[in-house]
């Protein structure tokens, strides 16, 4: 745990905002860059992805009755789902990820989510990132608390790819946010750098990035990242992993899932988004190759969408959703979680939550990052076993 006094002194943000802000420039006693071997990569699908069209319960007739124009057909038919286990199949746009499911390095958790009833994007994202559903006063993120619960090894142990520090990494993990690792640093001569370092308390993270120069690394194994924001983010996360700068937790997000109108089925808006999404994740796994055994990728989204399609061939805000896990340590080739069925719906409209998202993360953080207690990560909550890691 970082001493509060040092925290304030070394934090540039403290200077700017009067000490109320998280520490982003932790001046470490040792800036060693060989941190823990394992890396957790979390991707937030902002806007609430329609999980029922991602991992499709094609064996349930009620699914087709509720979605006359946007349902994904049964496996074996044109545009049909790709079968996973005889009950669930994935959207055909997830084809690039299917081999990972088949070789048991990928798994899904269906009917997972937050117990809080809110259907507000903003509140639900906030609750999920804070890891304290229903509590609005939590200021830091649960990934930040998980990182802070293990000894600090590198100023680059927690990185968010994006222009703003996401709530999930806000707090005392010393996380850094960046959009472009090639431009993560101060242009200008040594004197300018030194002056700004004096003002803000040091830019160790930027210095390490500069000397390791991860941006020079080309994707391996013939991986080609789609040219989209998520592709750029995951490509850079892979570069950070491969350059051994001590990364332990990486986070990024991707929007465009709020499909209230014209969602489409096997083709269309959601299909295009899912294709980009799965091609990007598949490229990431291919790029990292055997290194992927050290990496656990987890996806999340604030809530699911209504079981019934709405009047605009879309879906409105719902409740339970689906998560994807890929990489080292995953008990793959399986759709985890208890399926609540489409007969007894939450508030008569939405898929019920049978697995708390915190249960999934508790397993990942315990088994992959070596966080020994969930007491500070998910205060007041006793996670239950899911068996996905």
């Amino acid at each position: 745990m970082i001493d509060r006094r040092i925290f304030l002194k070394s934090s540039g943000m403290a200077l700017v905002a009067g000490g109320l802000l998280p520490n982003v420039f932790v001046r470490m006693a040792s800036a060693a860059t060989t941190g823990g071997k394992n890396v957790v990569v979390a991707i937030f699908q902002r806007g609430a992805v329609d999980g029922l069209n991602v991992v499709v319960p094609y064996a349930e007739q009620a699914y087709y009755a509720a979605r006359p124009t946007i349902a994904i057909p049964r496996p074996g038919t044109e545009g049909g789902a790709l079968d996973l286990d005889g009950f669930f199949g994935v959207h055909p746009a997830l084809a690039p990820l299917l081999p990972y499911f088949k070789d048991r390095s990928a798994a899904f958790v269906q009917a997972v989510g937050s117990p809080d009833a809110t259907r507000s994007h903003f509140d639900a994202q906030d609750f999920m990132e804070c890891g304290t559903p229903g509590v609005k006063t939590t200021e830091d993120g649960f990934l930040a608390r998980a990182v802070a619960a293990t000894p600090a090894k590198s100023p680059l142990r927690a990185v968010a790819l994006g222009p703003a520090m996401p709530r999930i990494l806000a707090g005392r993990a010393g996380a850094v946010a960046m959009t472009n690792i090639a431009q993560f640093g101060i242009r200008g001569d040594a004197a300018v750098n030194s002056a700004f370092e004096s003002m803000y308390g040091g830019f160790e993270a930027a210095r390490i990035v500069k000397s390791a120069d991860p941006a020079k690394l080309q994707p391996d194994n013939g991986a080609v990242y789609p040219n989209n924001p998520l592709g750029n983010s995951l490509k850079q996360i892979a570069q950070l992993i491969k350059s051994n700068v001590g990364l332990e937790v990486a986070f990024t997000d991707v929007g465009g899932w709020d499909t209230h109108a014209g969602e489409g089925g096997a083709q269309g808006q959601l299909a295009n988004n899912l294709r980009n999404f799965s091609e990007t994740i598949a490229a990431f796994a291919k790029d990292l190759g055997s290194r992927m055994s050290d990496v656990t990728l987890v996806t999340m989204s604030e809530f699911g969408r209504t079981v019934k399609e709405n009047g605009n061939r879309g879906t409105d805000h719902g409740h339970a959703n689906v998560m994807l896990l890929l990489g080292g340590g995953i008990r793959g080739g399986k759709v985890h979680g208890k399926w609540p069925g489409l007969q007894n719906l939450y508030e008569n409209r939405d898929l019920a939550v049978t697995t708390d998202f915190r249960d999934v993360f508790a397993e990942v953080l315990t088994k992959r990052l070596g966080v020994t207690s969930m007491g500070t990560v998910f205060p007041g909550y006793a996670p239950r076993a899911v068996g996905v890691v």
Partner: protein
Amino acid sequence: MKVTKLITLVLVAAMGMSSPHLTERQRALHALNRLGFGPRPGDVDAVMRVGIDRWIDQQLHPEGIADAAVGARLRNFPTLQMSDRELVQKYYVPIVEMRREAKGDENTIKEMREKIPYDQRPQRVVEDLVSQRIVRAVDSDRQLNEVMVDFWMNHFNVFAGKGIDRFLLTGYERDTIRPRIWGKFEDLLLATAKSPAMLFYLDNAQSVAAPENRPSLPPRFAARAMQAPQARRGGLNENYAREIMELHTLGVDGGYTQKDVTELARVFTGWSIARPQEGGTGFVFRRAVHDVRPKTVLGVHFPAGGGIEEGERMIHVLAHQPATAHRIAYKLCQRLVSDDPPKALVDRVAKRFLATDGDLRETVKAVIASPEFWDPAVYRAKVKTPFEYVVSAIRAVDAHVDDARPIARALQQIGEPLYGAQPPTGYSDKAEAWMNSGALMSRLNFAMSLAGNTLPGVNTNVNALVGNVDVASCVDALGIALTGGNLTEETRQTIKSKGGQQVRTIAGLILGSPEFQRQ
């Protein structure tokens, strides 16, 4: 003894300053920072000459400020004066036709797009719009007006990246938002509810009653009504109904239920956008797809057979709820006073909102007239948003912006692309959303480029700010010119020892300093 000293330090830090009142000069600087985008050289003196109260009063009545120079500059952006319809015709229709011609082949489309002259490319529309916002914030004498435009465009956020909204935002800002920000909240709310930009952004344009809830029409009319694609197989869309309560009015804890969301969505069925063959791109109420069954929203009951007046009634009800008054008051206080505004202030401002029938000028006035606004504890204590930071830096060094596009790119890097907030929440007004290492470094890089005059299309001459002085006095002279003499001793010493001899480096370091990040 040690403990006492520590407590004193904490208390002084918490109070910001030990003095109970701001000096006149500090008040003038504070007004320019919070009610505008920071001072240009000479502005503090000018405000003191006019008198701070009188200057504020002028700012509260922007129609009385000539602003001729900015008016002339805006004429360089041809799309700003075009109607929604003209914009769609000129910039969108050709793309649709091109796509049809190319039969969906992406490469052909790409080739055809590259042949379009710059002036006719669709991205020109948002580029002009972004440029005018920057030019106005930098150069307009109606500074408070631009602050409020930024505030209300963010409150009623519409994302330029969603479909045809990139052609509708010009009219949205010009015709819906700008003319109403000093009027009644209800008028502003109603205008946004009927704006094509919002109707498209939050999907209400497509929300129609379930077939069994529609009015029965003579067959002739029914046939025509069914021509609309959404009417053939349409139904309810909750998106707008939820966000108008959660974000535009009551707030997420404002006491509504999922049932209220669904019922309000039924109230707004038929609020849509005219199709080109109906004569344009404006608001249209489609009675044929309006839900005519009885409904109850927030305890307000509507009997069967209602029409557009139901939605107008609900706009009126929502605009006058105490929860709405509180939310608007809170957000205004957060923008103008502090990230976590004092409860007593918010309550007082909310009361004024309710007492004046949601008069926005009176509500803003209540914030500015409050002792909390002038409290030394909030003086130079609020971190600037990227937009505030970039514009205030340009104004501080008296730069001239010939081409605003490099500024727009800088804003993107620092994390606040204008019209680029995808979720309906818009951008945050709190420091924690903006302060992280990557964004901070982008701010510092911007500061160095601006002061070094290396931004293309932006003309900066920092030497003109100080004249011919030695390094030691240069740091102090620039400290006074750029921060009103508010550099800490620590920053002064750092720059003196590391800033070298060049005025532009020293100016860049001051613009990048923690002191300049705050207002």
